[in-house]
């Protein structure tokens, strides 16, 4: 299905996507919000710039954006895959609990806030470029990878992992000068450890047509919280 979303209300777009079984190409998209909310199956290809809450509660479908995403891409996503050929705004993957998000370039504030995992349901966010402040805030599980493909000096920013109590943040960087919160343990990864994350890098490369072995070279840091019970000692029963 081809669809020019420009003159339609967003729920009409979503109705049309569902009527087509979930597979659709939207062209000239310009800020329409909530596209593919809760979609269970199919592949939605978007040309242009979708608005906020793209693929919120996504439940199995794949979304490909040839352009930039806005805020709240993949909010509370459960299953499926979102691929952004560009950059995105704030709160990417808020409270995500499954599926994968690949962003070719950069993400703004609060990516991966409060993502969580359970058993083999592990959400993954791969960021090709750099990330803004509060990356992985309140993170309770899952994996966030910052590839830093253009070798920026500071690929992550202040308050990364603040309030984090589960999951892993992996950052490729020459050195990590960012000031990290006290409860975050940060260390250089050994070569042998990297293999656990290699499949995600390969997937990133294949989604964006890169065959760049350099992406996974150099120093890679692993950020993890020091406890999954951060507030155990905070309270006293009254």
């Amino acid at each position: 299905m081809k669809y020019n979303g420009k003159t339609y209300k967003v729920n009409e777009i979503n109705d049309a996507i569902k009527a087509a079984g979930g597979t659709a190409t939207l062209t000239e998209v310009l800020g329409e919000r909530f596209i593919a909310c809760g979609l269970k199956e199919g592949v939605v290809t978007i040309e242009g710039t979708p608005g906020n809450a793209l693929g919120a509660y996504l439940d199995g479908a794949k979304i490909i954006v040839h352009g930039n995403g806005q805020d709240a891409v993949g909010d509370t996503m459960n299953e499926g895959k979102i691929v952004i050929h560009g950059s995105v705004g704030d709160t990417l993957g808020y409270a995500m609990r499954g599926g994968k998000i690949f962003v070719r370039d950069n993400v703004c504030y609060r990516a991966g806030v409060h993502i969580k995992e359970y058993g083999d349901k592990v959400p993954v966010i791969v960021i090709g470029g750099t990330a803004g402040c509060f990356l992985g805030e309140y993170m309770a599980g899952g994996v966030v990878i910052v590839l830093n493909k253009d070798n920026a000096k500071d690929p992550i920013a202040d308050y990364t992992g603040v309030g984090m109590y589960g999951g892993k943040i992996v950052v490729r960087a020459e050195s990590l000068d960012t000031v990290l919160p006290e409860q975050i343990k940060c260390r250089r990864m050994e070569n042998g450890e990297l293999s656990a994350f290699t499949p995600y890098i390969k997937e990133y490369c294949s989604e964006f047509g890169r065959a760049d072995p350099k992406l996974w070279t150099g120093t890679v840091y692993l950020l993890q919280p020091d406890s999954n019970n951060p507030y155990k000692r905070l309270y006293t029963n009254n």
Partner: protein
Amino acid sequence: MIDYNVAPFEVVRDYDKCVNCRVCERQCSNEVHHYEEGFGKMISDSAKCVDCQRCVCLCPTKALKIVPNQNAFRPNANWQQKYLTEIYKQAESGGVLLSSMGNPEPFPVYFDKILINASQVTNPSIDPLREPMETRVFLGAKPQTIERDASGKIVTKLPPRLKLSMPVMFSAMSYGSISYNAHAALARAAEKLGIYYNTGEGGLHKDFYKYSANTIVQVASGRFGVHKDYLEDGAAIEIKIGQGAKPGIGGHLPGAKIVGDVSKTRMIPEGSDAVSPAPHHDIYSIEDLRQLVYSIKEATEYKKPVIVKIAAVHNVAAIASGIARSGADIIAIDGFRGGTGAAPTRIRDNVGIPIELALGSVDQRLREENIRDNVSLVVAGSIRSSADVVKAICLGADAVYIGSASLVAMGCHLCRTCNYGKCNWGIATQRPDLVKRLNPDIAAERLINMLTAWNHEIQEMMGGMGINSIEALRGNRLMLRGVGLNERELAVLGIKHAGEV
């Protein structure tokens, strides 16, 4: 180390009646009672007692009573014993004081200063036992204009609504803060009564999906257990912004309570804390709220009403005015006496405002702005009786939420130690041996009994006023009078003083 604290309660045992059956010992998860072989009798350690009354109720010879400890610190109207005790606890532990259930402090209870009208001579009262009396309520936006299609026919498609047999629903209490059996009882009772219960922020156990027609699912800042099927399964979806017992702060369910099915339902590993941040980090404005409301509506194809729940705070009327324009169908407001499984004592006892005043000002504000019918209003914290329900409706509510009252119906004695996780009544605990003490069939029956009785009482009060439809009672402030209230209080409530015509 010296323990500076003294036991708040004293266990009094009548040894003439005690037969050493040891029921009290087996029933007490706080390990207050034990049999002392050497003495040949039961001994109690009052320091561990929380006054939950479990042993008192189950003692076959009624040999036990729990009384306030008469041991007294030197009386001081300013430095009450409570403040000293709390300082001792903090001096010892360095911890933030944690309490449970609603604010117990002696602030005014406005419901107790409001009286209801009745007919005499000039308009006849109605006997609800003989005549029809309508307590059914629909919650949701009410269309304000008539739309016609191309052929001139009236478009009868209404926004999604909830249908309640009576204007009462069970408040949000998460699976985790209360037990599986407590949730089962609430779900069964809601189904039988034709009302709704609310999952709270803990996801929905797969066993309870069958009650979906009577389930409100909650989306809170941690988004625990939220996914497409969960949203689909609710009859309505509630976005939790705040809670009356702890406005402005989030929630921390300790890892010790994240066990077994609770872990699975919330989708976080066993033993890990579950942290709900204070704000939703994607909501910093009414516009952002509107976005979340509509993302939920898009995901559920506009088939379900969306509720936005807030705590009653100082500028609640302005906030409610914003929410009424956000696309939400229902606003739930939780007063400062609302219950909780755990909240910092200082927040619970000092933050927020009474629900009666919040309701009075919100209803009046929405009417002034001509947006009252954009939304329904549901109020909570705390509704203790059918009279409170009637007064709330007269002050402008469409319906009420009851949390504490429903727990009390199931056996809770408001000992206010839910945060210990050792509830002897099997309600606020995840310990399997304690959970099984609560029989969900009996608990459901008790809930049904209570609300059936309340409904009769509501009908009696309505009949007394000569009103036969609860819709005619909503916002009907002429049916209320205040006693002992000053002019500001009366103005905020929008009612006259008793004796005024």
